């Protein structure tokens, strides 16, 4: 695969091209990189949904879908991603690669034109985004925010970050809050959309068989009409290297659930301010990021304290998360065992075998990024947030070079910040 250098093709619009013959389809994502904020998150998340209801030329779902179907089942979906404190909002398009289009048409050009049209020329009424579209998509967004409570594992994670990062932008979920979504009007959203369109830093990522020059030409000619004002730089993420309070904070919610959910948030320490990503990844994989990890082997398998227990890292924010499903009465034991296992990693209480398994797991994972188009898009979009583009193969090499000492120094400063427990219904007289 040829990865072109990411470059600015229009004011504040950057293009990354991944050229490969491996897939039958091509993909393009257009991402407005917006600062995550409680006030704007819901508005931002609503924009691509409303825009996908219709354009000036294809004003409703039926005519828009007809245009998609004509292009061999082009699929364009709204995407809202949270990377650190950046809310990445836009579209992901997947379409038949020109090599496999039976009629020999150049689908890529037409897809790029449609994406530009979706972003720049929405269906309007009286100069505003159509009120009926805004209202119906708003209701669907609210219902999506509400239904997050249906997935108890994700809900516990959201609550943890909300509480742990209450004074930080990171405490806001990727779709924003129901309360802020309720306040959105067609007039307000139109104003916000216009402002975002003229100022947002934009990242476009292409993956498919076309040469970079062709992609660039299509993007430049279709997006040239974008009304650009003073373009904002890529939003920054505030990294806190240590816990917000001297003592670990504990929170419990009671809901009508049959299984308890335990979520623990950690700060990674000073290493989060560096580019030393590989040792932290290995430490995490060994602690709880793989099925050969300490959490899996001990908390789940050996002690049967939980149904699942795993850890993950948001490198962009410098946070580690442990997520676990437990019986209500196993709370103390499970929490203490989780911290014990982290201590073991920090003290170097692991075997050569554990280290190698963790590295192998990560390397395999990084190598397979190139086998899935959407993962490539995810990976390279994430890279745009850093100081430089690190290809997955290169990161795999860095991972393979990680030593036990590297892990020790990477894990040294990891500190628990907040513990969140989603408990069952509260019984009378049973204080928690």
């Amino acid at each position, binding site marked *: 695969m040829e990865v072109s250098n990411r470059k600015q093709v229009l004011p504040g619009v950057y293009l990354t091209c991944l050229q490969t013959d491996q897939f039958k389809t091509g993909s393009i994502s257009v991402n407005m990189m917006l600062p995550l904020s409680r006030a704007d998150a819901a508005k931002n998340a609503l924009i691509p949904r409303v825009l996908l209801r219709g354009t000036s030329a294809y004003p409703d779902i039926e005519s828009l879908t007809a245009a998609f179907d004509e292009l061999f089942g082009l699929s364009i979906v709204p995407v809202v991603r949270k990377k650190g404190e950046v809310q990445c909002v836009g579209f992901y398009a997947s379409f038949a690669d020109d090599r496999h289009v039976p009629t020999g048409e150049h689908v890529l050009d037409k897809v790029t034109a449609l994406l530009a049209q979706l972003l720049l020329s929405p269906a309007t009424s009286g100069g505003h985004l159509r009120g009926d579209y805004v209202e119906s998509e708003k209701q669907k967004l609210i*219902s999506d925010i509400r239904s997050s409570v249906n997935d108890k594992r994700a809900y516990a994670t959201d609550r943890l970050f909300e509480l742990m990062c209450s004074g930080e932008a990171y405490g806001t979920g990727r779709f924003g809050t129901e309360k802020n979504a309720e306040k959105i009007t067609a007039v307000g959203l139109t104003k916000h959309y216009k402002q975002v369109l003229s100022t947002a830093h934009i990242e476009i990522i292409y993956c498919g068989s076309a040469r970079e020059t062709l992609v660039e030409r299509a993007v430049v000619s279709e997006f040239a009409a974008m009304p650009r004002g003073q373009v904002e730089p890529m939003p920054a993420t505030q990294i806190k290297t240590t816990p917000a309070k001297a003592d670990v904070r504990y929170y419990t919610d009671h809901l009508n659930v049959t299984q308890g959910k335990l979520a623990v948030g950690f700060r990674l320490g000073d290493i989060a301010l560096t580019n030393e990503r590989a040792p932290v990844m290995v430490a995490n994989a060994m602690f709880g990021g793989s099925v050969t990890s300490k959490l899996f082997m001990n908390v789940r398998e050996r002690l049967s304290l939980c149904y699942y227990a795993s850890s993950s890292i948001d490198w962009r924010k410098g946070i580690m998360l442990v997520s676990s499903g437990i019986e209500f009465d196993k709370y103390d034991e499970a929490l203490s065992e989780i911290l014990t296992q982290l201590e073991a990693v920090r003290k170097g209480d692991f075997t050569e075998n554990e280290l190698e398994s963790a590295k192998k797991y990560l390397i395999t994972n990084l190598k397979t990024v190139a086998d899935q188009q959407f993962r490539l898009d995810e990976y390279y979009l994430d890279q745009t947030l850093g100081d430089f583009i690190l290809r997955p193969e290169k990161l795999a090499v860095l991972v393979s070079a990680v030593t036990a000492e590297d892990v020790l120094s990477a894990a040294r400063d990891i500190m628990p910040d907040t513990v969140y427990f989603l408990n069952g219904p509260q019984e009378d007289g049973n204080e928690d």
Partner: protein
Amino acid sequence: MKIKEYPSVGERVHTERLDNGLSVYVIEKKGYNKAYALFATKYGGADRRFKLGDKWYDTPAGIAHFLEHKMFDMSDGSNALTTLYAKGATANAFTSSDMTAYLFESVDGFRDNLDTLLSFVSQPWFTDESVSKEQGIIGQEIRMTEDNPGICLYYGLLRSLFAHNPARDTVAGTVESIAEISPETLYNCHKVFYNPSNMALCVAGDVDPDMVCEAAREILPKEPADVPVRDYGPDEGREPFERRFERCMEVSAPVFYGGTKCVLPEDGTLALRQELCGDLALRLLMGRGSGLYSRLYSDGLIDYDFSAGYESVAGVAYTLFGGESREPDKVCEEIKKEILGISRSGFGKGFFERGKKAMYGMKLRELNSLDSICYSAARGHFGGYEPLRAFELLESISEEETLDFIGENLVPDRIALSIIRPVGQ
């Protein structure tokens, strides 16, 4: 090995039938870092009553799924899943109504991992203790799925459509039925269904096809064996067993599935053709590009998650459509009206051809995924068709044929409806 080419979509498949009866498929995927293997047996939750020799056997509901769980236990006390993970592979298994499959993907050491896969699936090891422990674990799993609205909704529809076919029962069985399982029943079922003549090995990636056959020849039993005859019950006819299933559960809004029974052609290629035709018909009738979808969506009666399709399993086929809706009955009435209207007016040439283009793109997208290619290869093998012929078959489907499908298989009076409503509604 034999080679089949599908030049229009750029695919190449190597096939071989080994002396022991095993069918091997290797789908060439140059450029991929990982390789994927799926080792499947034509044995699922619906295969409970079967004949071997002259004798009929009845086995407890949930046994195929139970067997899948226990296959990872090795006689030396190790667990095959952990072994594969420790070697850097990602592994898993699943049981459907008519298939059990074990799979892994890995970047390095493919042959080594393939050997592990073939070994553990062909070497059963069950003890009283391990079986009784698993009864507890799967019992928990069953209780959890009983609270799952999606599963309940789906089986609500299948139980309404079918009176006898065992596909109407959940694959995992019940706490009571799995209590009847013993090491002996597991060994017997393994012997009957996990014989290479009843299995397929499907591999996709940048892999030497001969190496795959070599591994299978070395590790698996050398002799072919008889393939059991299954009993899925008497012919079901076209009328649904019941027209309605309804229940209240912890959901935020009502969800529903509607569906009809279809007659599954015996011939595999005809069955594939019918599947394409059915999917196309439903897409044209109520997919995102249809006037009906647009109306229902604008009126707030359906949501983005509304979907429709054709499915076949364990000798039966059905259409299925649904999603979240505040008024499932109203949506169903609108669908019935649309069926009658389209049957009279047809789709129109432009709309029909566009639908076919969209289906082509959707099928093409599936070829990006090694897991879906291997899964299709196994399904195609057990169903007696070549999945990659879908592109050429799709091209030859006419509007008339699609309308015939609707006339035969989507009769409004024969639609069954399954609804889950929020508690208190």
